[in-house]
């Protein structure tokens, strides 16, 4: 399980390499910081919090696996025949895009500007942050009420508070991702 997350990290770094090849340095930097720096760390945290050693990696049964593989190969064949039969008129010139051009485009409020989606995405990130905090904190009230009715063993309570602390650490990690 942890190994698959590390392989995902390698895939993301390879995609950042494709961006570097295509001369989009800003996108490659975003890919490296947000994905390789933030998302992979979040997933590693969740794997380490959740994963038992004795838990087997359970996959679907063989028949369903085979059927899905066949369907994926059929879809891939359709995609590839479409791609290789379509005549792309590739523009031969190379244009170097600077970060300042992307910034001007993002903050342009004339026709073809992206100021409205930019603001909407910032509100969405704020809403996601508040939502994650509410999801994480909402259970605490219920968990704190329960010991009054039926006292639980002390070990379980301390385990829960430890998980709360680790969850808070994950949330801080997420907020650093969003400030980027």
């Amino acid at each position, binding site marked *: *399980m942890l190994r*698959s997350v590390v392989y*995902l990290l390698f*895939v*993301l770094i390879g*995609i950042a390499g*494709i*961006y570097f*090849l*295509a001369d*989009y340095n*800003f996108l490659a930097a*975003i890919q490296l910081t*947000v*994905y390789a720096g933030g*998302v992979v760390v*979040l*997933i590693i945290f*969740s*794997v380490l*919090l*959740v994963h038992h050693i004795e838990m087997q*990696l*359970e*996959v*679907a049964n063989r028949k*369903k696996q085979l059927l*899905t*593989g066949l369907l*994926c*190969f059929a*879809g*891939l064949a359709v*995609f*590839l025949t479409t*791609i290789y039969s379509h005549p*792309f008129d590739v*523009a031969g*010139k*190379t244009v170097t895009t600077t970060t300042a051009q*992307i910034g001007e*485009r*993002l903050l342009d409020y004339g026709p073809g500007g*992206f100021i409205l*989606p930019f603001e909407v*995405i910032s509100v*969405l*990130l704020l809403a*996601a942050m508040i*939502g*994650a905090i509410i999801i*994480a904190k909402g*259970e605490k009230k219920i968990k704190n009420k329960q010991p009054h009715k039926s006292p639980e063993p002390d070990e379980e309570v301390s385990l*829960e508070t430890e*998980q709360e602390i680790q*969850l808070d650490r*994950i*949330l801080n990690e*997420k907020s650093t*991702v969003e400030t980027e």
Partner: protein
Amino acid sequence: MIPGVSITEILTLTSILFFIGIYGFITRKNLISILISVELILNASVVNFVIINKYLFPDVLQGVVYSIFIIAVAAAETALAVAIIINLYRQVSSVEVKETEVMKY
């Protein structure tokens, strides 16, 4: 354009990445594995946006801007999904798909 690499090769690569993601999304029974597969699918689509912008319309910037928006939405989605998964694990002590059949009410 990238010298020495044609557009069909990169589109082939992203198609393979996309279908690996779909295969993992359907066959895995673990919520974190499903999250990793969704990351693969989103990355394939982002690379498609960027490469088509670079090869076919190098004068405009729409592909880059949309890929920035997709990356932001994907980061928010991952953070929320991890919060939900950990909260679910505290309630049912499992992250398997077939175990998650209780909702709040």
